[in-house]
């Protein structure tokens, strides 16, 4: 397989999410696009840590040293990243919900309170 396909996939996911956010007419949709942007970081991280022919870095079944393993560090980073993403999404949705109550809309283009 091509040597950098996963990296390209990550880049595409980021750009397409950016596109979604630029054109979004609904803040809930914007938050969903942000979740896609974040998914790109998981793909990039795990892609950087993959090792052809390696197994998961868990030694409960395999004896240590018997087989090469993939990079455990990026997995730990991605795990942290997943938690961060979920919490930020929750906060953003909470803000969106309250915004809807006060502005009567979730269309970013109808929010005109702050400008200049």
């Amino acid at each position, binding site marked *: 397989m091509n040597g950098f396909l996963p990296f390209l996939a*990550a*880049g595409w996911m*980021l750009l397409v999410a*950016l596109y979604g*956010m*630029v*054109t*979004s007419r609904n*803040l809930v949709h*914007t*938050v969903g696009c*942000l979740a896609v*942007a*974040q998914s*790109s*970081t998981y793909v*990039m*991280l795990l*892609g*950087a840590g993959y090792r052809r022919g390696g197994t998961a870095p868990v030694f409960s079944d395999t004896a240590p040293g018997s087989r090469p393993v993939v990079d455990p*560090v*990026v997995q730990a*980073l991605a795990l*942290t*990243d997943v938690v*961060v993403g979920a*919490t*930020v999404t929750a*906060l*953003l949705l909470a*803000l*969106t919900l*309250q*915004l809807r109550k*006060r*502005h009567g809309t979730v269309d*970013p*283009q109808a*929010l*005109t*309170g*702050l*400008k*200049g």
Partner: protein
Amino acid sequence: MQASALLPLAVAVPLLGAALLAVIGRRLPRVGCDVLATATAGATVCCLVLLLGAGGTGRATAHLGGWPADIGIVLVADPVGAGLALLAAVLVLAVIVYSWRYFDEPSGQHAGVFPALILLFEAGMTGFALTGDLFNAFVFFELMGTAAYALTGHHVEDRRPLHGALTFAIVNSLAAYCSLLGIAMLYARTGQLNLALAGRSLATGHGGVPVTVAFVLISTALLVKAAVVPFHFWLPDAHAVAPTPVCMLMSGVMVELGVYGTARVYWTVFAGPGGVPPHAFRTVFTALGVITALVGAVMCWHQRHLKRLLAFSTISHVGLFVTGVALLTPAGVTGTALYVAGHGCAKAALFGLTGVLLDRYGSVDEYGLHGRARGLRLVGVLYAVGGLALAGLPPFGTGLGKAVAEEAAGTWQPWLPAVFVLVSAVTGAAVLRAAARVFLGAGPRPQPRPHEPETTGEGEEPEIRSPRRALPATMPTVSALLLLLSLLVGTAPGLAVALGRGGERFTDRQGYLAAVTGTAEPALRGAAEHTWTGSGIALGLLSAALACLLAAAAVRLRAPAGFSRVVASAVTPLRRLHSGLVGDYVAWLTVGVAALCAAFAALR
């Protein structure tokens, strides 16, 4: 206590305080919450003061978990990093004291949540300032962000805070994910997460596109946090609407942490062979800094919403900080560090005083408040003093920092000091103009301009619910003390010398690497002594005088119609760009990343 124990304590203490407040806050009376929060913030300040004392002008490290740098996470405190953490801690303490009697906190189930979030914010800032690890910096960046987003949207009854907080959160999180992509790229290249070790590892390669792109992506989040043009759009929207105590923190130190992060990452990782060449960094970031300073100053001058005015003045000062750092000299770093310290205190004081206006009159509109605050004489005087401090009047810390940075900039490009003088004069003048109108009722009442895109600052939700009570004494007192601190930064003997050593340490890659890996640090070269010089004082007085003149002219004189029309046709398009629209801001962020990539590729 040992410095290696104090380092993690600076993060752990506020975290513990926040958890305690969240658990027992609802059972405590209001006073109990305040005492607990103040004690925690005070303990953090003590911790950082001790750390600076123990570390002296050298570097202190803490290997967390007892692991070496290539396996675990290392915290590193040098005078600049620890000093910035101390500034954050001092401002947090000030903010907590400021909001003792001020803040109408939701009672019952949510008592204690506001100070708990402030303490989490503090932990994020100290952690970010002290960490020596790239991914760890991302984590603390997000911690800072999470607390700040929630705090910005605190007034759920009002419509604008929610809008500002959402914009802030979306743009900042997006930028953080860009950075994480960059971190992953750098990790793929170097196999390191420690800043110094990643830098060492880069030296074995040839640099090139992956390193440039990784640097630009990693900088994205930092530049967004620092509100550098064109990544700055979220800042006025968030700062104009956040509760005043939160603004004090965000403008005073959070934004500056972005500049610090950029400089730290560049010096430790990318400044060496195989990284991003220094001449490219110097050119690109000086350009960014100057553009940011000018845009911020122009926008600041045209605001009538007082908090938004202060927010734009923060942007323009950030431009000056970026310019100072971009010189890549110890003197530039030292000057910027002094400037940041002096500016942080002065800006927090100004926001605090604006909070007094909001508390008394329920408005932060320069036009609407015309002459209404004549009774608040002391507040008015403090406000004017804050404006002068912002303009760089000696002997304020802003003046000293500006003088040192100007001199360092002037040795590279002779025209740069003019930018420093102009920008500080314009931002100071905008504050003085507002002070003259609001507290003195000077000049004719300005006419509203209904056709211009602007945020007025009228009809703000008051932050307290009993407007008839007396003004809490803590509000003006804290602001006055902060102004005094700003003065102390400029006059305290030894501080400039210590930060001078700090500048040398900050720009010393090999020393940082040695400290992290636990090998002997090379001795420091003799650091230059930075103190007040004749030309520095003269330029400081010049910008302060210029600020007074500009303010007087704006209040008293009526500009000829032709001149106003020309100015309006130049400025209105710029103001229209600040549309409050998330989609626009995301597009500008992409443009910024593209422009940075292209600039670095062109200058390689």
